[in-house]
């Protein structure tokens, strides 16, 4: 476990040494502040459009950070020829991969804390109340969802040739699931066999990342979700993340690293 944590801490340090997070964070803050300055019929209490824009940017930025960070982990170690010295230490390939995953996931968690703190402050400045429980649920579900994305990207970094292709494919798949994943079953029911069964099978196979997108509940001030339901969703995501990580470990074990 110490080895995994040591690798993870290096990944976290890498995140705050790089400029990606700062650029995305400042961009989000600037755009939200500009949008907040718009005069809408002289009503200063209009806030939901601002929450929607802010949350959209948080989701996009978190996906960019998660995918780009995870996609370059293994390839950069190979390119810099630091992979051999790393594995020469008492560190197995599985530990290295788990450390990379944990580091990326924790780094994304830290980034999410910063983003959600800004979001909470922005919303509170107009709404004058702070539904902490709702924000906590939204942040946790968001973070759990990123575990699946990071695990998938790490697997992709071992399968695809370059980090750019891996990142592009992951972005497209994640966008597809977030936009259409919820509706695949409705489309499948309108198709004749065997396409119906194939599409329904795909619907069951894909990780339903859209489950963790509770932005509408936050934007429109709906009551918090029941905690057992959140627990089931978290287990669902962790199961997918574990499966993808096991797959990644199996691929990495057999992969020639020179």
């Amino acid at each position, binding site marked *: 476990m110490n080895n995994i944590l040591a690798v993870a801490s290096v990944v976290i340090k890498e995140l705050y040494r790089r400029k990606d997070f700062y650029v995305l964070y400042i961009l989000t803050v600037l755009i939200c502040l500009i949008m907040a300055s*718009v005069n*809408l*019929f*002289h*009503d200063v*209490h*209009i*806030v*939901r*459009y601002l929450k929607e824009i802010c949350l959209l940017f948080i989701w996009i930025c978190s996906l960019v950070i998660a995918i780009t960070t995870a996609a370059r982990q293994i390839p950069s170690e190979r390119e810099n020829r630091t992979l051999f010295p790393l594995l020469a230490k008492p560190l197995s390939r599985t530990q290295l991969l788990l450390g990379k995953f944990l580091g990326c996931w924790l780094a994304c968690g830290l980034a999410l804390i910063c983003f959600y703190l800004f979001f909470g402050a922005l919303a509170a400045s107009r709404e004058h109340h702070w539904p902490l429980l709702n924000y906590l649920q939204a942040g946790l*579900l968001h973070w759990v969802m990123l575990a699946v994305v990071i695990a998938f990207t790490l697997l992709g970094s071992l399968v695809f040739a370059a980090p750019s292709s891996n990142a592009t494919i992951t972005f497209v798949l994640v966008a597809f699931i977030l936009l259409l994943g*919820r*509706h695949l*079953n*409705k*489309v499948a*029911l309108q198709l004749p066999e065997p396409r119906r069964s194939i599409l329904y099978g795909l*619907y*069951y196979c894909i990780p*339903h990342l*859209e*489950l*963790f*997108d*509770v932005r*509408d*509940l936050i*934007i*429109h*001030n*709906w*009551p918090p*979700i*029941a905690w057992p*339901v959140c627990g*089931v*969703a978290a287990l*669902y995501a962790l199961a997918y993340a574990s499966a993808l990580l096991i797959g990644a470990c199996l691929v990495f074990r057999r992969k020639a690293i020179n």
Partner: protein
Amino acid sequence: MRSTKLPLLILLGLLVLCFGLAAWLDLWFQTWQGNRTQSADVLSVLMGDSRRMFANHFFVKADAYFHSGFYPTVFDNREAFRTPHMAEDSGTVGGQNEGDEKGFLGKPRDWIDALSRQFFPARHTHLDQGGASGDLGDSSQVREIMPWLRLSAELNPNDIRTYTVAAYWLRERMGKVAEAEQFLREGLRENPDSYEIMYELGRVYSENRNDQARARNLWEASLRQWQRQEAPKSDPDKFLFIQIVSHLALFEEKQGHYPQALAYMELWKARSPGPDAVQKFIDDILHKMASPAPAPAAPPLQPPGQAP
């Protein structure tokens, strides 16, 4: 050593050519009809006329906000949402909705579907009735639809319903009469022949400004525009016609101008889906005209959307 004269001369020649071309093109560009730089609107500069394509999207987005996010997607049954509810409830457009507005999701098809319904709004509410909080006393939350209506109007200034719907909610639930009037006047500048905006502006003067004379002038102008634009059509906008003539009829009756009131009521009856109810108004006026005593106070103007 090679001479540098030739490259310098070529460079000078190119600079002169660029300057000349820029001067010539600028003259042409300033007179070109497609020049967007004269517009102060950033969206029109950036997007040109393509922005109109997105206007309806944001109008529907406002309706999704009106429902606090509970809204059908293109994959759901949208029969009950063909006319945006925020527009229908404002009484500025006629409704074409059918079906169950609360149950468009249907029963859960599988366990993932059932689980997913815990993670997005799955209950039908309207913002003017408290929205997700269910607080019936708090109708001011309807203000949240305004950014999208404003954006929709910016993107397509000729979409008239944007102005009338926004103005209704601004003055009725947000108490912003001046802003509603200003927005309607903005719409009227863009659409000078719009009978819908004239009618809605008349309501502002009648219901909020208590300036009945100006309201009547606007409604009469609105009726003239309706007759010019809609009367020749095979399927005219009956809903707004009834709104206009019913308001005019009741207004004239209130003023004691019975012949004019009767004339408007005949128009109203001719296109009303419930002519018997209108006939009762007519009989009432005829009775008042026949009786020698001074006419009693007429019933107050009916709220919109309730004209028989």
